[in-house]
């Protein structure tokens, strides 16, 4: 079980969180300059690291914030937890 150290609520167990997929950039603004294949690549091809990767977790049953968690997929050790960029 993961213990995620929410920057707002402190360490809480995995049950309070919803996994929301690997990190990816925000959807590009100028879609006109983007080719169809690049956009499908953006939509479908995720990061799949064997090792340290970034992913989104939503503190669904807590403060409701989205967090960016850096986690090692081989050991499930969490290296850092910060608020996801809310631009």
């Amino acid at each position, binding site marked *: 079980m993961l213990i995620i150290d929410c920057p707002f609520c402190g360490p809480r167990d995995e*049950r309070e969180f919803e996994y929301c997929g690997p990190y990816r950039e925000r959807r590009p603004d100028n879609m006109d300059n983007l080719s169809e294949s690049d956009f499908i690549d953006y939509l*479908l*091809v995720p990061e799949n690291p064997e090792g340290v990767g970034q*992913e989104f977790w939503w503190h669904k049953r807590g403060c409701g914030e989205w967090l960016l968690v850096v986690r090692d997929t081989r050991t499930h050790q969490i290296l850092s937890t910060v608020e996801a960029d809310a631009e």
Partner: protein
Amino acid sequence: MEKYSLYSLVRNSFTQHRDWSPAWITHDLKKNYDVIIIGGGGHGLATAYYLAKIHGVANITVLERGWLGGGNVARNTVTIRSNYLRQESIPFFIKSVEMYEGLSKELNFNLMHSRRSMIDIIQTYPKLREIKRKMYVMDIFGATYKPISVSEIRRRIPTLAGGGNDSRLPIIAGMVHPEGAVNRHDAVAWGYARAASSLGVEIHQNTKVNSLLRNDDGTIRGVSTVKGDVLADRVAVAVSGHTTQLTDTVGLRLPLRSFNLSAFVSEPVKPMIDVVVNCPDLGVYLSQTAKGELVIGGAPDPGQSFRRGTNQLVFERTVGAMLELFPSFKKLKLLRQWGGTVDIAPDASPIISETEIPGLYITAGWWGGYKAIPAGGLTFANLIATNTPHQLTKSFTLDRFETLDYILEPGTTTRV
């Protein structure tokens, strides 16, 4: 290949079973092959066997990182079934189930295949509607999926004491899939390895592939292993959860994510369940092995994972769900647990495809690939030998994602 029979068993008993010939032959790793198959699991070995047997490709090697039968072919719940939703999937899995039924004889290896029906326990109305839809589609393509009453479920599964009218989720309906079966996972790996080896396929264990190699013109050149470079014009990747780790080395990007799927095994007890019980609303399924152990499968770990352990939360949820329906299992002790790394495509359907790199083929996205081993091997061998997809898997190619033509396949444990 020494033929296994009652006669050979009796004959070898005279020498205290000391003179059995090895099931597969060990070779020295050569520099060149016609086809390199990465991954000596069920799919890799089956592909090698059908390539040699049907397509007459002789110079094949299977490179396995660990030992035969030590990967995901042993990290599953051996459930064989063909109750799928999509018209692309059903004929493929029907073929696979049929092939499994004749496989012990074909491979001359006792797979302990046991056809025993799968019963789905339905506890919510949305699931009932979904499962009825599945029934109608399956009926068109010739797989069997029949409704049965709650009292019939309880007659066939006497230990199913939970799910009564006063419970959180009362059982409202059931479905029986008579083709459902289980068999022995090691025997599938060993049987295919032995049959492939007798056809001249070289199997190299403890030969980890570190990266793929490309020629200057972009075509595949071979692989780089811990024992040096091995070259071939055709390289097939059949490595389950680690597919992207290999394809990343030649810059091929695939729509796959890897997850950990775990299962649990109880202590052996006397026979009490002779069907595969699936509870899609609770997210647990189980069967009893010939040895008497209960094999219990649950939901995947949230978050991508390459760890082979199990998550305590998944364990609690799976066991808790099982005890809701089978309260008497509370007394059982669990002996073993394991997790396997499986990769999943955005639509949860498999990928058997050539790639943008000429000569590189992949079979991936097998979320529950054990049941697909015979047909997966057959169709993948066809693709490698002829460079055209097999009739049964022509929809499972990578180019479906270019047009977003998903084959959405919601299952027991998929999160699609």
